[in-house]
């Protein structure tokens, strides 16, 4: 079950603190997406190495197939950017160059996002937000929302099955109404589930003014320190680059 905040706690591999994941995410946004310090040779290489980190993390969370697919894709795009693009010219250069530019920059952050969502549980997420002093009024609605998505996906799968049995498909007689046919039952089912879910939450005291406790144990371990150190190294290199110590 790999969806939003629905980590399979029976088989999840190495666990990182959600705040560590956030730190890596911010670092990737600054360097890989934002391209900070890309004119400094050392930072550029460090950014490539850092971009491999989310793929490595996916592997530590035992999401082998995702790690492999993303890893190969990123490797292919990056090597195209480094090896192929300098030899191109004209239209080929603009098409391939732009594609590489966009995807190579976006991908690390996207992969990190996929890893964050699929390796964190709702309770860990709430606990981390709590430690970062984000108010309850924001975290509670968000956590209910995250709980709601996987259920909607399940409903969607059931509806698709039903459509298959009725032979409603692209190319069929009713192709024009495919979206409407999906949305109507999906909305009816989601509304039902949403209202049942809220009722159940209220009877268990969610949303009272009492300050919520959280028994979920999160905290920094050796693996967190290693990952944070790797991210911090990039910033340090950048600083050193800016002050002219490295090139």
């Amino acid at each position, binding site marked *: *079950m790999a969806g939003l*905040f*629905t*980590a*399979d*706690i*029976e088989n999840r591999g190495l666990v990182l603190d959600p705040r560590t994941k956030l730190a890596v995410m911010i670092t990737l946004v600054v360097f890989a997406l934002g391209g900070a310090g890309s004119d400094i040779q050392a930072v550029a290489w460090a950014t490539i190495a850092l971009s491999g980190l989310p793929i490595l993390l996916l592997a530590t969370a035992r999401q082998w197939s995702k790690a492999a697919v993303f890893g190969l894709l990123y490797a292919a795009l990056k090597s195209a950017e480094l090896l192929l693009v300098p030899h191109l010219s004209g239209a080929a250069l603009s098409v391939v160059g732009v594609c590489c530019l966009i995807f190579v920059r976006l991908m690390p952050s996207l992969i990190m996002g996929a890893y964050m969502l699929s390796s964190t*549980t*709702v*309770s860990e997420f709430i606990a981390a937000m709590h430690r970062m002093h984000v108010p309850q009024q924001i975290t509670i609605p968000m*956590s*209910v929302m995250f*709980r709601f998505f996987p*259920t909607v996906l*399940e*409903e969607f799968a*059931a*509806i698709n*099955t*039903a*459509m*298959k*049995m*009725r*032979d*409603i498909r692209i190319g069929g007689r*009713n192709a024009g*109404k495919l979206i*409407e*046919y*999906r949305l*109507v*039952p999906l909305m*009816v*089912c989601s509304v*039902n*589930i949403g209202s*049942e*879910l*809220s*009722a*159940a*939450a*209220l*009877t*268990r*005291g*969610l*949303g*009272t*003014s*009492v*300050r*919520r*406790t*959280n*028994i*979920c144990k999160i905290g920094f371990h050796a693996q967190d320190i290693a990952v944070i150190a790797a991210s911090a190294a990039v910033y340090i290199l950048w600083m050193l680059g800016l002050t002219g110590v490295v090139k």
Partner: protein
Amino acid sequence: MSENAAVLRDVTFRYANGEQGALNSIDLEIKRGECVLLCGSSGCGKTTVTRLLNGLIPHYYEGELSGDVSVLGRDIRITAIGELAGTVGSVFQNPRSQFFCVDTTAEIAFGCENMGLPEAEIQNRIDKTVTEMHIEKLQDRSIFNLSGGEKQKIACAGVAAMLPELIVLDEPTSNLDLDAIDELREVIAAWKSQGKTIVVAEHRLGWLEGMCDRVIFMENGGISAIFSGTDFFAISTEKLNDMGLRTVHTDCNYLESETGLHAIKPYSGSEVITLEGFTYSYGGQDALDIGRLELPVGSVTAVVGHNGAGKSTFVKCLCGLQKRFRGTITVGGKRLRSKDMMRLSYMVMQDVNHQLFAETVLEEVMLGADEGSEAKAEQLLEKLGISHYKERHPMSLSGGQKQRVAIASALLAGKNLLVFDEPTSGLDFRSMECTAELLGSLDSDVTVLIVTHDMELIDRCCTHILHIENGRIQQVVDL
């Protein structure tokens, strides 16, 4: 402390959205430590009573409320729902929509966390609840890997950890099989021995025998009769059915029979559908292994077996919904492979909302039908008793009527192997009877398979039983 856990005085309630289940001047006292069963047909108001007790009415479900309701000495009108949370626990019908966390331990802790208890106290309560309910095996598991019965146990544990004085259960067994119901019964017995007050609203009655002190029979939003537990469970089946209640004792338990196909009613057809190579495995385990099976055409066959016996894998294969499945069926001399089975078969799902798409009933049933078969469609709707709804939106119909629309659409699309997944779960006696009549009255070329735990339904309409265990059957008994 008064001796009453809850007192309802001249309570009248009407839902603002016109939902069924209004109450008309109800008077009811529930004593501390009592176990009370609320029964009656759908829409009689028993769920409404449970919602008054846990404060969902008037704080969540809106409507006009008059009269006084006090729960554990507090007026529910002025008590916020969150304040009641620690003293009134609620277990609902659908395990799918009462969970917040993805792991079981966090789920048990959820209510206590909301109450803001200290961490150490919560850990204590979890440990105690887990030991008391014997669910050590269910700790630290992913919710997605639990069976329906296990989920309902975790829901009960989450409620129990909050140490409520009053526990309200609204149709808690609707989605459970017989074994899971037995386990739920044990949970309730333990609560009873701890002196907790328990209120259960239910259609299924048998499992509460010997457990309830009082049984409250409701009709049309009023209390028609109050029985003592012993008196109620001595009422004859005929009388119960007259009252619109499900049977308490069913004579036979088909799960005790040998695995395989058995005829339970005289049956005259001679044609058969031959199933071959019904084997399927996932994760290295054989989920299904049935070499050959002959299903009589036009029969109504109940597919029974314990949880995880392979019943749903079997019917999924039969409907062509299971990927990588290689078996075949032969009917009328034609041999069909997995992906062609879908043209012949149709599954009516437990939540029929998933399979109604169009804007009107007529349009819905015409979706898969040939052009120009409107007359045939009208005839079929007439036969199923839903012809005067043909211009209505399918979603605006009642559960039973939706089921009929789904059946009509399958039949018009030329499907004559219909599979039903628990068609009577959560239905009262009269609706169950209607479904049974309907399934028994389909044309003789329509073969019906019903995956069900409902012995009463089987008694009423099935001609055959297919008992599967561990994905296997023994040699087929003579038809």
